[in-house]
C-alpha cells in the first residue's frame, strides 16, 4: 500500500479514534478524581478537555490530499468525519465545565 493511501485510510478514523480515547480518559479521570478526592478535580478535567479539543482540531483542519482517485475521495470523507469528531468532542465533553463531578 502506498504511503498516501495509508494516510488517507488512517485519517478516516483518526478523529473518532482520538474522540474514543478522550472519552475513556475523561470518564476515567472523573472516576479517579471522585474515588481519591482530588482537590483540583475539575481543573484536571477542564485541562484534559482543552487538550482533547486541541488534538481533535488537528485532523479536522488538516489539508486534503489528492494523490489518486481513491485517496482523494477518502480524504474528503475523512475530513467530514474528523470535523464531526471535533464537534462531538466539543459537545459531549462540555459537561466537565459545569456539571457536578461526583454527585
Amino acid at each position, binding site marked *: *500500500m*502506498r504511503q498516501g*493511501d*495509508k494516510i*488517507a*485510510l488512517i485519517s*478516516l*478514523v483518526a478523529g*473518532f*479514534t482520538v*474522540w*474514543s480515547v478522550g*472519552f475513556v480518559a*475523561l*470518564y476515567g479521570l*472523573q*472516576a*479517579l478524581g*471522585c*474515588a*481519591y478526592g482530588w482537590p483540583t478535580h475539575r481543573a484536571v*478535567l477542564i485541562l484534559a478537555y482543552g487538550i482533547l479539543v486541541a488534538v481533535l482540531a488537528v485532523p479536522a483542519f488538516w489539508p486534503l490530499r489528492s494523490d*489518486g*482517485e*481513491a*485517496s482523494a*475521495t*477518502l480524504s*474528503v*470523507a*475523512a475530513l*467530514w*468525519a474528523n470535523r*464531526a*469528531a471535533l464537534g*462531538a468532542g466539543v*459537545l*459531549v*465533553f*462540555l*459537561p*466537565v465545565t459545569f*456539571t*457536578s*463531578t*461526583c*454527585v
Partner: protein
Amino acid sequence: MTEPAVVSPVRLHKELDAIWRTPPGWGRLSSVNHTVLGKRFMVLALTFFAIGGLLSMLIRAQLATPESGFLEPALYNQIFTMHGVVMMFLFAIPMFEGFAIYMLPKMLGARDMAFPRLTAYGFWCYLFGGMILIAALLFGAAPNGGWFMYTPLSSRPYSPGINADVWLLGITFVEISAVTAAIEILVSILKLRAPGMSLTRMPIIAWYMLVTSGMMVLGFPPLILGSILLELERAFNLPFFDPTRGGDPLLWQHLFWLFGHPEVYIIFLPAAGALSTIIPVFAQRPILGYRAIIAAIVALGFLSFGLWVHHMFMVGIPHMALAFFSAASALVAIPTAVQIFAWIGTLASGRPRWDIPMLYVIGFFVVFVIGGMTGVMLAMVPFNTQAHDSYFVVAHLHYVLVGGFVFPMLAALYHWLPHITGRQSVYRLSVPAFWLIFIGFNMTFFLMHLTGLMGMPRRISSYPSNWGWDWLNLLSSVGGFVLTIGFAMVLADILMQLRFGERFGRDPWKAQTLEWATATPPPSYAFASIPHIESRADQIDPAALGSRLAGGEGYLGFARANRQETLAVDMVTGAVEHVVVLPRRTLLPLWTALATGAFFLCLLFRLYALAPLALLGTLGLFLLWPGSLGETADQGPLPIGRGQSAPLDAEASNNVTVLASRTALVTNATLYSSLLFGGLFLLVVAPNWSSAPETAVSWAMLLAGVGAAAVGGVAALVGDRNNSGGRAPGPALWMTVAAQIAAMVLLGATAFLLADPTQHARIAIVFAVLAYCALHAGIGAVLSGATLFRLARGHVSQNRGTAPRIVALWNGFAAATAVAGAALIAVLDTAGAVA
C-alpha cells in the same frame, strides 16, 4: 507457467463447477462454499426468528388479559428471556452474517470469502450453540434472568440451576461464529475485491459491512469476557461480581452494555446498507452523498461505543458521567439522520418506481423514525428516569430493532430472493402481507408507549385489572397476532415464489451492482472469470458484463491445477496483489465444531475433568487445518488472464492470513483490555477493598515468567526476520518454544500459588490475568512448534513466510500481555484500597 487455454463457456462452467461444487448426500456436510453456507445461515436464522416469534405469541397471550393464568411466572421468565436471546443472538446477528457471506463475494467480484473453512466452522458453532439453547427451553432449563443476565440475579445463590449457565456457555459458543464471521468479512472486504475496485469504488453496502465487522471485532470481546468471568464465578466461586467480596454487579453491566449498545448499531448498519443499495435501484439514480454516508457510518460506528451507560442511567452514576452519555446518545441521531436524508434525497431526485421492496422501505422510514425519536427522548436523563424499565422502553426498542432491521430485511428479501431462487415473486400475497405486518406491528407496539407511560413495568407476568392497562394490552395482543399472520403470509409468498415464480434473465430489477452479473441461482464458483472494475461498482451494467464474464473474458477465466483460485488486491487502490488459493471442501470444520461443542457441554454439565480433553481435541483439530494448504516449492508469478501475472498468496508478505491474524489479535487485545479495565474498575469503584486480603503473589516467579514470555516474543520476531532475510528461522523458533513453555509453567505456577482466589475479587482478578497470560504463552509455544513442523516439511521458505510471521505476531502479543498483566498485578497488589 503459461496461461491455460481458453475454452467454451459451457466447458469452463463444467471445469470450475467440478472444483467448487458441494457434493450431494452426506457430502453436503463438508461444504465450505459461501453460497451454500450463506443460505444455511439465513435459513437457520429465519427458523430461530420463527421460534422467537412463537415465544412472543405466548407472551402476548399471557398479557392479553389481566391476572392471566395461561403461563406460570417461572415459565414466563424463561419465555421472555428466550424471546430476547433468540431474536438478538440467534436471529439478527446470524442473519446479517448469512447475508454478508452469501452476498459480499458476489458484490465485490470474488469467488468466495477469504476463509471458507472458518465460515463452515462458524456455521456449525452457531447451529450447535443454538441447539443447546433451544433444547434447554424444551427441557424447562432455559435462561430466565432477562436477555442481559444481570448479576446478582444470575449469580449462583439466586439462580442455582443451570439456566444461567445455558445462557453464558450457549451464547459464548454462538458468538464464536459472530467473531469469526466479523474477522472474515473485514478481511474479505479489504482484500478480496475485483481488480480496479478501489475502496471508494465499492458499492456503499460494502462500507456498511466493513464498519459493522470492525464494530463486531471490538464490540463482542467485552461480552465474551463478561460471560467467562460470570461462569467462573458461578462454577468456581471467583467473586468478580459479588460486592461482599470486592466484586461489583456494575462491572457486569459495563461489560454487557459495552457490547450491548454497539450491538444495536451492528444490527442496524447492515440493514441500512441494504437500504442504501435498494433505494437507488428503485429511485433509478445513484445514491446521493456517497462520501457523506461513509463519514456518517464511521461516525456512527464510533459514537455507538460511547452510549453504553444510557442503559445504566438509574444505577447511581454521577451527573457528569450521565451528561457524557446523554449527550453522546442524542448526538448519534445526527449521522443516522444524514443517511435518512440521503435516502429521501435519492428518492426525491430520482424517478421512483414502486414495487414490493419499496413498500417495506417506506414502512422502515415510518417505524424507524418513530423509534429514533423515542430514542432521543430516552437519551434525556430526566425522561429516562420516568420511563425506565417500563413498557415505553419495550416499545422503543422494538421500533428501533424491527424498524431498523426487520423492515429493511423484508425489503432485502424481496429484492434479493430472486437472486437466490432464480425466480421472481408471484406478488399475490406480497401486498396484503406488508399491510398486515405494518398495521399489526404498530398496533402491538405503538400502544406499548402508552402502557409504559401509564406505568406498566417490563417483564411482569401478570397485572391487576384496575390499573387501566387492560384494553391497551388486549389491543397489543391482537396486533401481535395480526403481525404474525403477516409474517406467515410472507413465508407462504416465499414458498409460492420457489414453486411458481417465473424464471428470468440477469438483473430483473435493473440494478447496477455486481451480484446481478452472476447467473441466478448463482453457480458454485460465483464468477467464471473475475471482472476488472473501471467505475463505481454500483453503476455498472451487470447483464452485459455477466455474459462476458461467463465467457472467461475477465481474470482467472480458467480452471487450474484443481485449485479454488480468486484474487487479492491492494486494500485501498484495488490493484492486483496476489492469487489466493482457497481450501476445498472438508469435514474438518464440522469435527472441530463438534469438539468445541463437547467442551462447552462438559462445562455446562460440570464434567470439568473431561473439559480439558475436549479443549485439547479442538486445538488438535485446528492444528490439522493447515495440513493441506501451502506449497513445498516457490512458484513465482502465475498468469491470471488479461495478460497479467501475480504470485500465490503463500508467496505474498501481507496476505489475507496475516491480515486476519492481526485482526484476531485486535479482538483478543480488546478482550484482555476489558479484563484489565475490570481490575482497575473494581479497585476504584467496588466496595470492600479496604480490608482486601493479600494476593500472596510470588514476584520472583512472576517476573521470571514475564521475562521468559518476553524472550519468547523477541525470539519469534528474530525468527521471522531471519526467515524473510534468507537465514534459517529454526533456532529462533526452537528458542520461542522453550521460552514460552517456561513462561507458561512460571505464570501458571504463580497463579496456582496465589492466596485462595475465592476470598476476594482482588485475588480473583490476579488469578484470571495470570491464567490468561499462561494460556497465551502455551499457545505461542504450540504455534511455534507447528511452524517448525511446517518448516521441516518444506512449507516455509524466504518467500513463503506466512507461518513465521503469524508466530511472531502471536508471541509478540503474548509477551506484551504478560508485561501489561504484571503491571496491573503490581497496581492491584500495592495500591491502597479506596474506601
